């Protein structure tokens, strides 16, 4: 049976993704800062889907620990899915460097640090799939959350470059661009119902993208076109908008 590693396994999206892969008979490795709280999900995956599931301590911000984290994984996962992220408070980040730094470090630096390690392993093995959950917020900086958006923009560009490099090594990289998704992270936001997906939609998109070796996928097809429009607004107009 293949194995999938979920980095940042406590989010709603991560839970949905782990269930989706387990339902397709992947053994699951769940990684998060506190593994204790993941015990319930571990038993759930084992009982519901009859797969193996192991728990691993992982902190996206402890960059030094990432090499040893991947070294102790047994087996080396066939698919590594980087789900962790931090939305933060946009207004606070404007004046509070701690908050701004945490947003940038979690969404960008942590992702780069972790995926660089697994990229090395996969390129030596000449196989493997890496999935990065980025965000449509990274496609254009907007006043409402440009710290988060710029970190995700960096992450998207990183995944693109990584895909380019690893293609030649037989390793596939998927960039996932969710739009609005109903999760605990967005619980306090008013989201437009028609445009907002469920964590299960993200999970289905991720699974199908891995299966069909897609490069850049959007959760809910129309987001590709919405972002095309948003990207094509000239800057002199865009700066006047309140987005």
């Amino acid at each position, binding site marked *: 049976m293949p194995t999938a590693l979920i980095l940042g396994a406590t989010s709603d999206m991560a839970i949905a993704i782990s269930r989706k892969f387990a339902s397709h008979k992947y053994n699951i490795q769940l990684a998060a800062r506190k593994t204790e709280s993941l015990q319930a999900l571990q038993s759930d995956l084992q*009982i519901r889907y009859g797969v193996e599931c192991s728990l691993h301590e992982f902190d996206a911000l402890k960059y030094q620990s990432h090499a040893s984290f991947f070294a102790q994984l047994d087996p080396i996962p066939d698919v590594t899915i980087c789900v962790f992220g931090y939305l933060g408070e946009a207004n606070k980040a404007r004046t509070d460097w701690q908050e701004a730094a945490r947003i940038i470090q979690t969404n960008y630096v942590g992702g780069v640090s972790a995926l660089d390690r697994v990229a090395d392993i996969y390129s030596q093995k000449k196989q493997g799939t890496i999935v990065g959950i980025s965000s449509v917020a990274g496609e254009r900086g907007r006043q409402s959350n440009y710290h988060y958006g710029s970190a995700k923009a960096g992450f998207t560009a990183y995944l693109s470059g990584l895909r380019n490099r690893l293609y030649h090594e037989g390793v596939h990289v998927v960039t996932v661009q969710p739009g609005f998704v109903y999760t605990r992270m967005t619980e306090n936001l008013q989201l437009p119902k028609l445009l907002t997906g469920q964590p299960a939609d993200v999970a289905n998109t991720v699974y199908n993208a891995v299966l069909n070796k897609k490069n850049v996928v959007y959760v809910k097809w129309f987001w590709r076109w919405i972002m095309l429009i948003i990207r094509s607004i000239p800057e002199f107009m865009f700066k006047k908008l309140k987005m």
Partner: protein
Amino acid sequence: MKKQIANWGNYPMMESDEKSFAFDEQLKEVIRKEGSLIPRGNGRCYGDASLADVTVSTLKYDKILSFNTSDGILECQSGITLDQVLEVIVPKGWFLPVTPGTKFITVGGAIASDVHGKNHHVDGCFSHHVLEMDILLGNGETLRCSPSFNTDLFEATCGGMGLTGVITRVRFSLKKIETSYIRQKQVKAENLDEVLRLFEEYKHYTYSVAWIDCLKKGKDFGRSILILGEHATVSDLDESKKKDPLKLPKKKQITFPFNLPWWILNTFTVKAFNFLYYHKNTKKEINNVVSYEPFFYPLDAILHWNRGYGSKGFIQYQFVLPLEARNGLVEIMKRISDAGLGSFLAVLKVFGKQDSLISFPKEGYTLALDFPVRKGLMEFLDELDQIVLKYGGRLYMSKDARMKPGVLQAGYPRLQQFKNIIHKYNPDNKLRSIQSDRLLLTEN
């Protein structure tokens, strides 16, 4: 996030700030930060029991913690729905000990409403099969309770509409099955006397319920179809089914796409429907083997069937009358038939003995029927309440959206004891719903 929510009856509808949690610490944080709130599962109670300004959804708290396939004991978090439980247990040869007419309810909701099923006269309520559970109280403390430990908390939580605390972890026992099929018998009854006689005649059947036509008058008054069932054994199955006796039914679902205009349901259309439903069984008796889905969950095949009652919603009225109050049943059915307020088929069942603190069932006849919300309905139901009380009956809180506090008081002899226990575990009314306020279970 603030949103408009309603339970299955679509009445009442209100704006609520809905919080969610997937982990224990997240729930504790919600309880600590918010003022008063009520836990909410899949919103399949009919009325206002799980409505409040702040609700905490248990749906993401849905993990299976252990499943002993030799003893049939399942341990899970409270937000898992029965349909998810069935998918796991049926292929291993186990079934829910008690199930209501929909599988789209959570385990926590099944306990908070203490649901009953077609086997009540044999197996009792859902709570009879709960071995132990954990309750997170309003003060942030988690207490374990069972029929023999913290008994008062256990009793007041079963059927207690979420007012003791948030049910978090549940351990309950399952029923052993050989196959996922039901050996079904349907018997047509020409009138109320006959169906009640048939209930008696077939009381050894594990599952029994009757669909009854409440609009017929004269000699056909109370004509019904009695539906009986037993879990099929492998020898009951034909050769093709024997290959995979514990097969899960295929998911076939259609969605009711929009709210029907209110005037579609009128005496004429309901009579026509009831006529067709009764006469679709051309024989007096039908015996067949069916999958558990159509037997237990006929309406689950139509997602959002509640839209059939229009945007104003409906009230499902369910009462129980003691066995000796057969005249009360006749009187109430006559009132409904005369009022012509239009209900689809009603469901009649005979409950077995039960004497719980606050759970709805007790020995007698229970009738459940739907009334679309329209002018004059509430006054009419108030009148029915008085007849129910006159004959020593009571109403089901999970279906209720409108009863007056005195009706609850008169129907539940141990209500004061229930209130005292709520007061002990929920002294600051941290857990409260618009129903508990209306029924004066939580003090202002």
